[in-house]
């Protein structure tokens, strides 16, 4: 269809018979170099960030080594630092969040992509985009004053009486703890799951659904057995994206997690996450080892989100490109 633009693009940076001198005089090369510097500064900043995290966590890395990740004693007075309770807390709260957010988010995405009429779908997507913009500290505020009391008074006693035989739902009901943090995180990451999954679902070629419907499938069967499997890699990508968000989320979690560096199987128990301990103790860390132990936790968090984000982008790219390529 558009052959002319492609031809121009192919001509690329060295187009035409212009010499370097002429291009310099007309300002092209200068503009090129100037914007290149700005673009390169992004790489510079990111590299610098990694470097700073690495260098400033040298003390605990040398002193504790891999032991840092395997011990659960966090005692600044005796210079003993183990990251296990925080890693555990981060993983547990994120897992709870995903368990709640993935089914709900995927359901909502299916509704928006497959069922709702265009106008309604657009309006709802707009609201969900706004939801993604709500600052994390606001979620924390609502968490402290509504979610935590609700969990303490109604949800936790109910779970205790019905599913209390499971180790996850035992112990006293504080309200604050893994469950509260997980619920808040679920609400916070749901918009991301919805908007990315919706886009991935919309990228599935129409003939896939038409073929399924023509074979006599109901609308739900066409969606669940044809379209969702077709888009599954992209949906997985959205889940990874949400997981990366949940792992690094700080304020809301800090406000409801209970700040207790202990590993407990019960979701009712108060715990701690990596982001929360950095937020709480960074300003009061005395001594280099203490501060650097916190920075090493930051490095761990960075690496976790780095890997997850990389995987997520790759997966989303794979599906959306495949989807559009076959259209």
């Amino acid at each position, binding site marked *: 269809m558009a052959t002319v633009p492609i031809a121009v693009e192919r001509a690329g940076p060295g187009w035409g018979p212009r010499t370097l001198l002429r291009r310099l005089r007309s300002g092209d090369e200068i503009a090129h170099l100037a914007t290149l510097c700005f*673009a390169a500064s992004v790489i510079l*900043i990111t590299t610098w960030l990694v470097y700073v995290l690495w260098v400033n966590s040298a003390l605990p890395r040398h002193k504790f080594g891999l032991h840092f990740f395997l011990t659960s004693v966090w005692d600044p007075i005796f210079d003993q630092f183990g990251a296990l309770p925080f890693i555990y807390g981060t993983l547990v709260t994120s897992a709870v969040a995903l368990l709640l957010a993935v089914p709900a988010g995927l359901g909502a995405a299916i*509704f928006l992509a497959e069922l709702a009429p265009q106008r309604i779908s657009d309006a709802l997507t*707009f609201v969900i985009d706004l939801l993604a913009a709500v600052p994390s500290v606001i979620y924390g505020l*609502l968490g*402290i004053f509504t979610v935590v009391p609700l969990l303490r008074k109604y949800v936790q006693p109910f779970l205790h009486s019905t599913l209390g035989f499971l180790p996850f739902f035992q112990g006293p009901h504080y309200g604050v703890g893994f469950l509260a943090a997980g619920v808040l995180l679920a609400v916070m990451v749901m918009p991301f799951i919805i908007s990315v999954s919706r886009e991935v679902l919309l990228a599935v070629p129409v003939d896939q659904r038409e073929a399924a419907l023509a074979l006599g499938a*109901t609308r739900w069967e066409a969606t669940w057995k044809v379209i969702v499997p077709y888009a599954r890699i992209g949906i997985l990508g959205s889940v990874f994206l949400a997981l990366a968000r949940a792992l690094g989320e700080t304020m809301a979690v800090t*406000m409801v997690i209970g700040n207790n560096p202990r590993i407990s199987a019960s979701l009712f128990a108060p715990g701690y996450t990596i982001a929360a301990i950095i937020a709480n103790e960074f300003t009061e860390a005395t001594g280099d080892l203490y501060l650097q132990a916190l920075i090493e936790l930051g490095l761990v968090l960075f690496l976790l989100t780095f890997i997850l984000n990389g995987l997520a982008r790759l997966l989303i790219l794979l599906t959306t490109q495949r989807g559009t390529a076959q259209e």
Partner: protein
Amino acid sequence: MNYRLMWRKAVNGVMLGLTGVCALLAVSVLFFILGYLVWHGGKALNWDFFTKLPKPVGEEGGGMANAIVGSAKLLLLASLIGVPIGFFGGVYLAEFGGRTFAFLVRYTTDLLNGVPSIVIGIFAYSIVVLPFKHFSTLAGGVALGIMMIPITLRSTENFLLLVPRSLHEAAMALGASKWKTIATVVIPAAYRGVLTAILLALARVAGESAPLLFTAFSNRFWSRGWDQPTASLPVMIFTYAIAPYEDWHRQAWAAGLVLLGLVLLTNLAARLVMSRGMSARRS
């Protein structure tokens, strides 16, 4: 056979209904948050909130004037860092980018976008707070500025790429050099999109408190300079919400309402700018 069909139709109806419930649930969360904040924050919000300093512990009343000004100062600093790098970086990717280097920039930008805000805080602490030996507005601005870069950069790139190729060609056919084409044709055509991108980036960092905790820190009085710690709305909400005083909770709600109002209004404004631009292009 008939039973099977009925069963399949029933499953169809129930599951489709459930997806609708999910969507409704997700959407209602926003209205719940809004309603709750307006209800609690509205009661606590008064003129003093915008004009007075926080009162000492134990005294009722007072406001968060210093936090509002502090947030504005932080956002100004953040834009000074985030907007130029984001904008020109975006221009590079859209107009000059080669293959390998552009891919590298894009990938790093996405990576930076995914870095948890608290880690950005550690970075700003290490490069600004440590050398200066004390918390400062500047450090907070740097942290927020770094967070603005990826959002501004990628959206600028996308909006510039949306400008029709024919506009480039027309300008070049008239003899304009490449940078002149970009500066006088492409960027003006995409300025609404770029403005939207900047507004969205501002709205996002305006609500960030994690990177400010140990960069801009907090301050119960007016900040005396760019090198002094300053209060900011998100951090104030955090401190006031976890404090054990009833009056502070009241003020946290008020601050929450103001912050959420600002963030959502900025978002709405950004989308309005965008939709206007779209309809103008279509006509």
